[in-house]
């Protein structure tokens, strides 16, 4: 799974720490999602979409290997 969290953060001018606080997880968690080490739960993904004010598909998308 690919994600555009870094891009979305840049658009909103937010740091990893800011995002972590807004969705109520640790900075570690945002960092591992951003570096594709961890796939967030649906609840957390939806919270991220809310923070970035974009549809879920703009943040997360499937890759070749996921099919």
């Amino acid at each position, binding site marked *: 799974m690919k994600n555009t969290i870094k891009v979305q953060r840049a658009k909103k001018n937010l740091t*990893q720490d800011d995002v972590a606080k807004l969705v*109520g*997880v*640790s*900075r*570690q*968690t945002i*960092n*591992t*999602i951003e570096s594709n080490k*961890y796939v*967030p*739960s649906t*609840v*957390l993904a939806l919270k991220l979409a809310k923070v970035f004010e974009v549809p879920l598909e703009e943040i997360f998308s499937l890759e070749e290997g996921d099919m």
Partner: protein
Amino acid sequence: MKSRLLLPNKYKKIGLMLFPIFLLYYFYIEHFDTGFIKFDVGFKNFASPYLDDEFVFLGLIVSLMMISFSKEKNEDEYIALVRLESLQWAVVINYALLIICAFVFYGFDFLSVMIYNMFTVLVIFIIRFNFIVYRNNKRVSA
């Protein structure tokens, strides 16, 4: 996701304080073959006349459980995953070690291995879990 099987964060510190105390207590009664609490009931006579080793066992297990199963300061779903993975790791490594030990130690030596084995699952879990959390924290702050 709320985990209902975890103690509040402060119990980790309590466990970390209790564990060395009980470990020293264990070395003391083991080394001097002594104890503080006399317990002379027939069925226990053949082993040791003291109740201390039972208390040490209780103390070590409870303190290790406190260290293992207390919430982190920033307990979230990722930490829950690391916790679960570490538990699986610990069980696998523990049994691998036990199998090796079964071929290396015999008789009463293997009995000692079995006694230590009661604690190693938790010890391996604690080391693995905290190492991953520490490594991630280091990467985040770098």
